[in-house]
């Protein structure tokens, strides 16, 4: 029973780590960053390549170093996507296209990165050494520490305050002397870094690394962010843990083959009751 609960919480914590990236970017930009799942996938590749090529004989320490490499790659990639694909659109797109164009770009970047991974790494899955994987309990501890750190970052630091300010009103924030562009880049960096941690925990404890892996966990994480209340950091954490727990509960029943259908039906009910998500705020749109 305890093992089961640990597994369920670990699953939820991993989903939550990835969900944070979706929710933070949405918070500052009102953009669903569909490329986020591909940042996760690329960082997983970075970790396995670093682990096998650079730190093969280093044991657990090598795993930690590889995770750092993965974080660096994810941050670089996330920031590059923002600067190359999204920022030019924000400056130029007007009216209705201002919302839709970045969304389409996000999907395109996602497809592009998946194809690039397929070409560069082939479709054959790669595996992180399970012997070096963190034990279940530590997955939860790592995720919890990261989330506490993020909470502190958002609520207690200057840059966190700036992020919240840009989220409320980017124009007003600019008038107060905040550079929205810098804040946005920082948001992408943090979200991508968290995805990298999620990616390593995921690859290290349950599934191999392949070009389509981002979709598997990315979809769950995206839904977690929406159910928790997109834009809300605590909501993403709650949504992730909820999806993880619900999934593991369904797996214990004889309906395990329909896990997603059942979990998502429950989530639809949640959204019907609370359309803004569990912790989301239904704000009136500013005109």
């Amino acid at each position, binding site marked *: 029973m305890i093992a089961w609960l640990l597994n369920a919480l670990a699953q939820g914590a991993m989903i939550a780590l990835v969900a944070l990236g979706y929710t933070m970017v949405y918070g500052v930009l009102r953009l669903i960053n569909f490329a986020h799942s591909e940042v996760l996938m690329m960082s997983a590749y970075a970790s396995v390549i670093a682990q096998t090529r650079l730190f093969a004989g280093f044991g657990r320490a090598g795993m930690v170093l590889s995770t750092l490499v993965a974080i660096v790659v994810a941050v670089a990639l996330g920031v590059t996507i923002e600067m190359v694909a999204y920022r030019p659109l924000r400056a130029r797109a007007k009216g209705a296209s201002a919302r839709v164009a970045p969304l389409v770009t996000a*999907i395109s970047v996602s497809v592009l990165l998946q194809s690039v991974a397929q070409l560069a790494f082939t479709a054959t899955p790669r595996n992180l050494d399970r012997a070096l994987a963190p034990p279940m309990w530590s997955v939860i501890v790592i995720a919890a520490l990261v989330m506490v750190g993020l909470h502190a970052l958002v609520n207690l630091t200057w840059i966190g305050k700036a992020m919240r300010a840009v989220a409320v009103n980017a124009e007003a924030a600019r008038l107060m002397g905040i550079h929205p562009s810098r804040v946005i880049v920082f948001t992408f960096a943090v979200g991508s870094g968290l995805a990298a941690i999620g990616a390593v925990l995921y690859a290290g404890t349950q599934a*191999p690394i392949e070009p389509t892996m981002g979709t598997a966990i990315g979809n769950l994480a995206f839904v977690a962010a929406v159910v928790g209340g997109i834009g809300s950091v605590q909501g993403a954490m709650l949504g992730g843990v909820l999806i993880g727990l619900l999934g593991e509960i369904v797996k214990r029943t004889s309906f395990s083959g329909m896990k997603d259908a059942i979990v998502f039906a429950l989530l639809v009910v949640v959204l019907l009751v609370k359309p803004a998500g569990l912790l989301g705020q239904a704000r009136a749109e500013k005109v």
Partner: protein
Amino acid sequence: MSSARISRRGFLGSAALGGVALAAPSALLGCKKGGSDTIQLGAILGLSGEDASLGNESKDGISMALDEINAAGGVRGKKIAIAFEDTKLDPQLASEKIQKLIDRDKCLVVLGDAGSTPTLSARNYAEKAKVPLVTPSATNVEVTKDAKWVFRVCFTDATQGAAAAKFAREGLKADKAAIIYATGNKYSEGLQAIFKREFEARGGKVVKIATYQMGETNIVSFLTEIKDADPQFIFAPVYPSDLSKIGPTKQQIGLKAPLMGTDGWDGPATRQKGVIETLEGSYFTNLFAADQPGSKAKDFVEAHKKRFGGRVPSSLTACGYDALKLVVDAISRAKEITPDAIRDALEATKGFSGVTGTFDIDAGHNATKPVPVMKITAGDFKYDSMVTL
């Protein structure tokens, strides 16, 4: 799943394919112009996506056979051309792509797919358009059931599942078995049902059936439940992408009973470092055993090694090879070069000598042959025994 996301991706995907289709005719025209001295065939295979290895291995086999046939002057004085289309093993794409091959490229025969789910979907159009569809490795019983235009060069899951059950009872003397399989996957679902029926008919007991959803990544809870049921043997008719989750997790939780899989296991995903070690001592039924004593496949294995840097061919490669060889054999025997006549010739196949064995095509359009069992030993697939039902 976020449906908005999937449909948008689907839209983009087809938009991109549209672009490819626009660009493609110039490439295809080349072979169509010489229509009179070329026989145009098509192949639908899952060449990208999670289980891309399945389609790509089949393609390797088909390409090897193609080059051999054309180097030897083709068939009836004509060269063979094959248009490959990627299905990602997705049923919807499979049905789109077979339409393209038949309507746009006027293919006389279509080969594929590597897996059962997309082949079942492509089957409808082959039957409707009256063009033979020859699958190298789709083993699900339904694929050729009551079909007039669908053939396969492999045995069915009914044969394979029964062989696995016989091997478990007689070869391994197992009384208690567990099953782990994926829903949403006809191959996996079909095999588990056949195995359960046959294993129980032979006096064994299935103590636990763990059902997970295809694409599930967290396998821990399922294997823990199996461990608690304490079986002597675990039947796992799954695709290799799932195996790379099941193997390491099984080792991690200390589940000792041997796994037995099916032909889907034979591929590079299973041989991956970090996976193959965790499967040591497992068995699987296969479509082809490269190291089987007395096998006629030696030349094929050598040619494959030469072409692909020392790699031993997988069963899917061997089946892809046999599929095209069988089709060309049928073309050489056909009264005329039309889908109709080729179909009749395929149906009349007797004693075709392929690299996967010598076989007939039976009344149900399936190849009749015994089932080799492989054992994973020292990080490699080794021929263990032959099960004849």
